[in-house]
């Protein structure tokens, strides 16, 4: 059951990673008219369309992570401690904390993506989106690396 939830947790993270990366690039590096490259297409999205989905996916992914977290705490962390992999434990500790900060950031993120954008909110929208994207990228990479250390399953 934990393994299934962990896989769903990972899949939700992949969807969110895609949505937030599209959105962050569209707002920081907007596509110009006439571009035809794949990078141009990647940026040429309507960022506001992703906001609600990102909020739902972040909440869902964090909730699933919270559900499987006890299994990590009981077995994986002990395993890492036995191997004296302090840095591996440390990056996960940091992950749980910055994911929490990201959860708290969601209301501001949602507010700055509401339509229409109020005067003066453009920088806040860009900064909050970039911060959330960085949190998700870090968390995804740490989760992936730790899975590779310990492997899936009991």
């Amino acid at each position, binding site marked *: 059951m934990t393994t299934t939830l962990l896989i769903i947790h990972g899949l939700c993270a992949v969807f969110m990673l895609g949505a937030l990366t599209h959105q962050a690039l569209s707002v920081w590096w907007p596509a110009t008219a006439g571009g035809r490259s794949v990078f141009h297409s990647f940026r040429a999205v309507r960022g506001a369309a992703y906001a609600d989905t990102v909020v739902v996916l972040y909440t869902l992914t964090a909730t699933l992570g919270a559900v499987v*977290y006890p299994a990590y705490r009981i077995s994986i962390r002990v395993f890492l401690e036995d191997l004296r992999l302090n840095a591996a*434990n*440390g990056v996960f500790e940091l992950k749980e904390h910055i994911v929490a900060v990201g*959860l708290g950031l969601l*209301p501001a993120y*949602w*507010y700055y993506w509401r339509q229409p954008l109020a005067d003066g909110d453009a920088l*806040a929208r860009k900064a909050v989106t970039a*911060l959330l994207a960085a*949190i998700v990228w870090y968390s995804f990479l740490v989760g992936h690396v730790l899975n590779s250390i310990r492997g899936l399953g009991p």
Partner: protein
Amino acid sequence: MKAARVFPVFSIAFAVLYVLAMENNWALFTYFARAREFHWLVVAPPTPRMGPAMYWYGWLATSALGAGVVATAAALLRADRAAGMWRGLSWAVPLAAIAVLVFLLRGWFIRMT
């Protein structure tokens, strides 16, 4: 939606309260993963069989509750009129909170004497 104007205040307060809750262990409840039991406030494992105490859920609850109170107070005090200040702090404070968390967790990465 007028209530949404204080959403950035919630995010700012949450980041500050989370760091304080984590550093001072202000958990609203404690979870014992092995025993699958919740206990109000901070509780140390009474027996080794209970397994490690998990405070993270409690820190989240403390921060969310506190940030909710701060955001409600901000709405009542019409603090949304200071939107210019909140829009800058809404990303700067969480970013600073992450920097503080990295500093607090440095013991995992460097050997401290």
